[in-house]
């Protein structure tokens, strides 16, 4: 007697039990929070207020401006993109509570572009436990991205500090072989990550002599006088700064106050944004012309075009969208606005790429499988794969001119590439695809 058919029919008809697991998985997949037929909700955390906010507090408005532009063109697969933003004031306790609000009250589909290493490290484990995509994080800390088994849903939104430091370090070592090179860094994941990169590039620092550190967050209250005095006393000619913009501003002001004039300053990009630098010094009464002069000659790096590069097609396109759609209090065009626009462009690309059947799992899988093929304003490709979730794998080096424009060293932009491990620094042969006339990504 063949019981198979009646059994199956009986089971399916009466109990639903055997299929329960499968149907619940499908149902869950089809109804991930934050995505409906008409909308995709993304959540961002950043310091909109407080001491760490200058500059960074423009990224959300810029990203939203780009999403609003996309929405004005019909959205992504018929869905508009909504960006919900929470101000964590750069305090990790608030990062935890605001993350909970984004998840439970705002029902976000994914975290997007959240800013800050120390803050994000407080929630990254929980976000990943919940399998929520955590895309284009505005932190260059490689520890978030180089072990996807540890943080499977997190993807970077900046080149890592290690990659940048390796590239910058190689240049400084070769260019200033006869000079004494020292470093000022904040003693946290950011600073440590950068020091590792410079060390990998062959630079050697001597603790308490050519290497000076400070505890992140004390640059405003305690200041950096002892650190700068130490570097001065040890005859450091080239001072590298691996710290946030507010620390860079304090360092320059302190050096000026103690009559310390290094031959060169070299600053990791997130600490070298010109408008942030000028805003912070401006709040202390330093005129813009003076702060511009202080910054002039500083070496830094970027994965993207300089915001002041009027010849760049992405800059032109994004700048226009910023003019037309940015409703923020401060929409002045700068690195932060450019970065906000660029990661919004990338998010749009990824959401388009996943297609109509958008789920959290599919977004993560799409970025691992196809993320490295996505283009953006960056001159370096994305590194996303199953083995790493690092974003931009290359940087070009520049020097700030008197107008606070980061101009390529020697007048020619050369993009270097490497990884966050022991790979060599080489010249990149990546050719950035052109931006479409409508400034929307074209994803197959």
């Amino acid at each position, binding site marked *: 007697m063949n019981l198979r058919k009646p059994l199956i029919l009986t089971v399916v008809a009466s109990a639903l039990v055997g299929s329960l697991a499968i149907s619940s998985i499908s149902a869950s997949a089809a109804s991930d929070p934050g995505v409906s037929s008409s909308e995709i909700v993304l959540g961002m955390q950043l310091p909109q207020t407080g001491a760490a906010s200058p500059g960074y507090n423009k990224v959300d408005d810029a990203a939203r401006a780009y999403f609003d532009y996309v929405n004005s063109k019909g959205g992504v697969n018929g869905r508009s993109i909504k960006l919900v933003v929470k101000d964590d004031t750069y305090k*990790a306790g608030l990062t935890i509570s605001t993350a909970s609000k984004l998840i439970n009250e705002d029902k976000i589909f994914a975290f997007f572009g959240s800013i800050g290493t120390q803050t994000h490290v407080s*929630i990254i*484990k929980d976000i990943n436990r919940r399998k929520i995509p955590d895309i284009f994080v505005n932190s260059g800390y490689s520890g978030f991205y180089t072990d996807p088994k540890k943080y499977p849903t997190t993807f970077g939104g900046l080149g890592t500090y290690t990659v940048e430091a390796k590239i910058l370090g190689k240049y400084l070592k070769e260019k200033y072989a006869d000079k004494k090179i020292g470093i000022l860094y904040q003693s946290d994941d950011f600073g440590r990550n950068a020091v590792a990169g410079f060390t990998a590039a062959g630079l050697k620092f001597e603790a308490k002599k050519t290497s000076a550190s400070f505890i992140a967050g004390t640059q405003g209250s305690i200041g950096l006088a002892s650190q700068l005095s130490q570097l001065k006393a040890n005859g450091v000619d080239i001072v590298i700064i691996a710290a946030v913009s507010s620390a860079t501003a304090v360092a320059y002001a302190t050096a000026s106050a103690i009559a310390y004039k290094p031959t060169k300053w070299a600053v990791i990009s997130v600490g070298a944004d010109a408008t942030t630098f000028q805003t912070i010094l401006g709040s202390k009464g330093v005129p813009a012309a003076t702060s511009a002069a202080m910054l002039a000659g500083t070496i830094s790096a970027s994965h993207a075009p300089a915001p002041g590069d009027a010849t760049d097609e992405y800059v032109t396109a994004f700048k226009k969208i910023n003019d037309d759609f940015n409703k923020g209090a401060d929409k002045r065009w700068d690195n932060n606005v450019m970065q906000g626009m660029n990661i919004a462009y990338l998010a749009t690309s990824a959401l388009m790429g996943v297609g109509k059947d958008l789920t959290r799992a599919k977004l993560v899988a799409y970025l691992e499988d196809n993320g490295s093929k996505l283009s953006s304003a960056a001159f370096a490709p994305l590194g996303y794969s199953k083995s790493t979730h690092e974003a931009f794998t290359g940087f070009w080096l520049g020097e700030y001119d008197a107008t606070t424009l980061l101009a390529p060293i020697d007048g020619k932009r050369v993009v270097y590439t490497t990884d966050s491990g022991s790979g060599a620094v080489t010249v990149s042969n990546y050719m950035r695809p052109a931006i479409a006339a409508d400034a929307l990504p074209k994803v197959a």
Partner: protein
Amino acid sequence: MKNINLKRLIATLGASAMISTGLVVAVAAPAQAAEPVCVTDAKTSTITCDGKLSNGAAYKTMVPSNYGGTFYFWQHGIRPSYPYPGYTVPKGVEQMAPTSVNHKIDTTKSMLTLGYGLASYDCSSTGLHGWNTSDCVEMLNELVTITKARISIQKTIVYGASMAGAILTPFIEKYPNAADAVGILAGVTPSINNELKSGCDMLYIFSVFFDPTIKGCTAMGTKGVPGHYAVLGDFAKVVTLLTQWSKDSGSLPLAYPAALATSGIPQRSALLLAGLIAGLPTKSANFDGISTSALVPEQSINATLAVLQNAGELLGTAYFGGQAVSEVVGAGFYDNTKTDFAALLSDADLGRFNLGLSGDDAINGMLATLAASPRVTGDATALAKVAALDKSKFDTSKPVVLLSNEADRLVLPGNTPLYLNKARAVYESKLAAWRSKFKAATTTSQASALLKSKPIWNTVAMYAMTPETYTKFTAAGLPDTTAAISPSGVGHESFTKDQLMLWVRTLASSAKTGRVPSSGVMAANMAGVVNLNTDPDYQPNELKYQD
């Protein structure tokens, strides 16, 4: 741990030298149980009966006039077996129903009003009130059995707080038909060994950085009053430190050990390090771990003050819980010869509290010192015994409802997700096995029979949360510890009445249906109670040890 007023003890120890007092050791149990003596309240008609279990331990039942057939059996938490200044060893039943220390709430009246029968007993055996958990399992079973024989009970609920978790979980696994639902309030779940190791770690770190004469968990193991006093004496050293830090906020530089004596690292950084390694909450009654002022310039300083405020109770628990455990397993139950203290600090700890820890150089210096410090070698027999203590399988099919504070400083909140995760793993495994069987079924009768035995997920956890911020400062920017404490989420066995009563009602409905409420019903119920977690997937920080 309602009956241990550690705050008072800490104050007493801090204020004066210990006073030797005459000790009364619990009297040996009589051989036979006595019949209960019952009285009826003239006003409410509630019938209260007092009786003795077969070993002489007291029990009490209360049946209201509107009794509806649901009976709650309360299991209390740990009690010291010996007195100390400001504390007398209890005799008899102290508590009939959940209470809240912070909120000065006793739910007995509310539960009686709802028509619930109540029972409670004094888990005193062989002269001990402490970690006699295996005895408590049997005594609770006896109480349930004799009460069922005397009173008509339709639904039986066993519930309790703190150490009760180490009794109720093994209880329902050993006596699966004895109860219809299990409630664990701020409970260990169930192995105390996890948390004990963290408490002992913290004491060890204190001995390395602050006072080498502190013996910590190596002071434990002598039975009886001498052991109790040895522990009290050691605890007094810790209290001296805590008292000093409460005055100077630990701002003085480390004076010890030699390797760090000139480092300039403030003592508060080493305290924070010890707290983080132990997994102590970085929120406390007055400190939210976030708020800043002119004198508390950064969030991690606030968190350090929270750790300071929490440390006394965790360490008090380590001392008294550890001593109670040592009476059962013997001396030498703590061993840190293989402990990697650096690995016990999470990435999040190092990032978020970097400034409070005085930065990377200080962290590295302190960790290097810990790594190089002589370690404690335990006793193999005691270690095996403590590891086996209160072990459970987490395989009960009965509804289990847990309630915990987000920042419980005594039974750490990570106990609750540990229970949940272990129960979940067992459930997933059972479900997978069931699915295999179901797939293999070849007859409709086989399939139908299997449908009736499909495993169900029958555990739910609730958390009482703190508000986002609540630290109050004086006009000068000093933390104001005289201000109102957080209205929720802090302290041990401290919940609002609404939180407690939702837990009680959830237990009743679960016992009635055999299942915990659906996630939708739970979400709706929890949304109606202030400061319960609205995030169904919320999990507090994990325990550092998860055996």
